[in-house]
């Protein structure tokens, strides 16, 4: 067997010790009518062939394209020290630190992750991780219902559509209500959460609101009036959930500063590879007052019997293996290794490095905005943004598709992710980060200019040749 140690003699010795003739005898409890014989799967593959197969599959992915994709997952430079340290197999081949005496490495790194994320978010308590931004946001929404004993949350349509859909899935199960808060349609605040609508929704006293969920920057890249939203939310006795992108928190006001009660988001931008959607890192943080309602593991500092400082999983009475059907969530396995990646990344960058990453992304995004506008694709919304924004491109989906033939992934066609926002049907959501180069921006703008000038049709024919 590929990774097994047993020789034929080892197996024979074990069978003798057990007192059976064959391993088949050990499966005698399986009723005869339910037994199956073998698996209809390909033959075992030697590592040399498997490596070739995997390399070939990986090579079929077009990671060579110049990418302006963001929309919830962001390309960043990860210092090589991050992955080198993640490869310490004492970290990645351990499990949940149930035995703290021999898990201090994992426990201290989680405690430090909690502390780092508390600094970034301005919150007091950070869970040791959730699956991703969507599930962390859904858990945050559920937290507001448990804390207020109310059954309805309001979710801005500026929250990532996948997060909103995940909230719906989780809420359907719990028979709770998640209502949309619309976005402002036009004017200077276009694309941000509609405060007048929020006030109306909060005023419905027959259906009191447990929590209000708003993202900053929002899905369209725009900065939201978070402080004002927080005031309206609290005036209605509801809790305020802020959905954040962690790199942005180096420069943008933190949830703690503008009065959020809970912060949720995805930690992927902190040194975690894009990897087609996961594994990422669900960030969930809250104020002290909500600590006994936060789902997921928490690590605390304590001492051992000799008085030596040590760390341990704590406040475990919230968890499924203790409370079973009364637990705050069913979460068990989390994303601890991704939390470790984020912690190492933050250590490698430091406060100034992280600020540089965020500000450099903003600078590149300004250049991208100027270049695309000159090419005929102006921004759709006038409000401030950090490093991601939507542009209007006639026949966006077709142009997007033709630009792939020119080696460019021109962001995300908004019609794909927001099919129910007709005003954004010709929008492309584009993003720049510190790894976006000025040459890439120039190439994107030139190709887009060509396409919009009508000379792009010829390029379509080249698409096959690129593969």
């Amino acid at each position, binding site marked *: 067997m590929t990774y097994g140690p047993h020789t034929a003699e080892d197996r024979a010795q074990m069978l003798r010790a057990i007192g059976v003739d064959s391993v088949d005898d050990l499966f005698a409890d399986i009723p005869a009518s339910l037994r199956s014989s073998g698996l209809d799967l390909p033959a075992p593959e030697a590592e040399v062939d498997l490596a070739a197969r995997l390399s070939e599959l990986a090579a079929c992915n077009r990671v060579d394209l110049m990418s302006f994709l963001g929309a919830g997952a962001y390309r960043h430079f990860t210092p090589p020290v991050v992955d080198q340290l993640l490869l310490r197999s004492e970290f990645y081949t351990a499990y949940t630190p149930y035995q703290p005496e021999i898990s201090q490495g994992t426990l201290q790194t989680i405690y430090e992750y909690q502390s780092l994320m508390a600094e970034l978010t301005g919150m007091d308590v950070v869970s040791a991780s959730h699956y991703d931004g969507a599930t962390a946001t859904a858990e945050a929404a559920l937290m507001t219902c448990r804390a207020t004993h109310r059954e309805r949350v309001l979710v801005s349509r500026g929250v990532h559509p996948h997060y909103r859909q995940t909230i719906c899935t989780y809420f359907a199960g719990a028979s709770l209500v998640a209502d949309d808060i619309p976005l402002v349609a036009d004017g200077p605040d276009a694309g941000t959460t509609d405060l007048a609508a929020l006030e109306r929704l909060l005023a419905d006293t027959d259906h009191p609101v447990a929590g209000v969920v708003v993202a900053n920057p929002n899905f369209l890249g725009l900065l939201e009036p978070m402080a004002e939203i927080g005031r309206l939310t609290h005036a209605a006795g509801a809790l305020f959930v802020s959905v954040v992108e962690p790199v942005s928190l180096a420069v943008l006001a933190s949830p703690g500063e503008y009065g959020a009660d809970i912060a949720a988001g995805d930690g992927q931008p902190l040194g975690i590879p894009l990897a087609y959607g996961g594994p990422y890192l669900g960030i969930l943080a809250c104020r002290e007052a909500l600590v006994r309602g936060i789902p997921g593991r928490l690590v605390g500092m304590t001492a051992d019997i000799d008085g030596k400082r040590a760390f341990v999983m704590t406040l475990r009475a919230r968890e499924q293996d203790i409370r079973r059907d009364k637990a705050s969530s069913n979460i068990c396995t989390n994303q601890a290794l991704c939390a470790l990646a984020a912690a190492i990344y933050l250590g490698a960058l430091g406060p100034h490095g*992280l600020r540089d990453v965020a500000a450099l992304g903003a600078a590149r995004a300004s250049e991208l905005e100027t270049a695309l506008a000159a090419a005929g694709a102006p921004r759709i919304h006038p409000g401030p943004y950090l490093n991601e924004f939507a542009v209007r491109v006639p026949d966006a989906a077709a142009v997007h598709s033709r630009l792939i033939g020119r080696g460019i992934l021109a962001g995300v066609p908004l019609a794909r992710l927001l099919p129910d926002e007709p005003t954004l049907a010709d929008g492309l959501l584009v993003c720049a980060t510190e790894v976006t180069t000025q040459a890439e921006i120039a190439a994107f703008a030139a190709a887009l200019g060509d396409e919009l000038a009508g000379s792009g049709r010829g390029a379509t024919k080249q698409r096959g040749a690129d593969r």
Partner: protein
Amino acid sequence: MTVADRLGPTIFERSRPGRGGGKVPHPPKDALSRIPAGNLREAAPRLPEVSEPELTRHYVNLSQLNYSVDTGFYPLGSCTMKYNPKINEWAARLNGFAALHPLAPDEASQGTLQLLWELEEALAEIGGMKAVTLQPAAGAQGELTGILMIRAYHRSRGETDRTEVLVPDSAHGTNPATASMAGFKTITIPSAPDGGVDVDAFRAALGPRTAAIMITNPSTLGLFEARLCELLDAVHEVGALAYMDGANLNAIMGRFKPGEAGFDVMHINVHKTFSTPHGGGGPGAGPVGVGEKLLPFLPSPRVLRASDGSFRLEGAAERPTSIGRVRAFVGNTGVLVRAYAYIRAHGGTGLCEVSDDAVLAANYLKVRVAEVLDVPFTRPCMHEFVASSATLKAETGIRTLDVAKRLIDYGFHPPTIYFPLTVDEALLIEPTETESLETLDAFVEALRRIVVEAHSDPELLHSAPHSSPVRRLDETMAARQPNLRWRAMTGVQMPCPD
């Protein structure tokens, strides 16, 4: 220097203003000038400033405080701590996989889509299921996905009064917690004296209000449910569905296919059976297989293969019966690449051998452990078994906790303890197929010496472990006065350089 001396300061205590840097260039001074001041942060986050060499030593030294599969034997029952092949790690880091954006168009993602599609097919074959979703991020989320599909199924038939989920008392805590999250009431059914599900008790509890049963098979006692046929028949007779917790799939590959046997839905923990690393608590992945009845309700999007052999993601509104998304994007793809590599490396025959060797090793270890501790269930076990320190406790006052802590001094990770809840002073022991005979024998010898010590020097065990980086912890203090984050930074932070 002993390993305990590596217990070091936190990363915050290592911080000195002005250290670190050089990773990314400084942005232009006016980079943020277009953003209104009210949107900007007032106080910079107090993140540590450390040099790369210090950062490296910090984490390498911390890593050495951990026990791990690559360090030694980790017989943590129900967690399947098998060896994690290194080619898996290599594969997941191939740039083509690692750098692919989740919203890259299908035409740019064919390699990953093909891998995911092939993995779904392989898992469907292993589980005897009609189809598999790879979306759930962990076993518990797989459970939630499965139970939400069951809910959608009953609702599609107008049976909204099916509000109960039956769960045996030996189940993982995630089962009842999942049922609650999905809006169901959990009815706990006591186990039969032989450790199996009490079919008669189940029969009595089944009725028009039953939405589903959730069964772990093999059970958390490591036993195959002998009366499974009767149970599944009874469940289906009342119109309920059968969920199988696939946490223990490592025992039965090629021998038993839950879907063919009549289970309607099952999750699979790829970080158990398919060798993806546990990561200190995650990430894992929890694919879910379904039979015909639940096919329409699978989460969206699915990975589809077109008639021309190309692959694509299902569109947003393509299948209105879907329960929707359970997370963003497609799934923990990086984890799934590892599982795929493992399945291809073993092939069908290799996976059967994995289960055979896992069961063989567990039965061998059970016979050997019975020489020194109680083993309450004597019939052949599957991939794990329950031992108990009940007799030892009666004779010496030494509890399972003490035995577990003393095992640390002998260089072993303790088994899962005090689970399942149905066995007094339980130790749930799962050796997996990747441990050598010498390791298994050495583990038994350690237990034997501990039992001797329990009689001769019980205090040694009460105060164990003695050789670990730290000793037993004050968990009461941790819970009473929770200290969940570092608050004091060393030194004053330098202003941002421009």
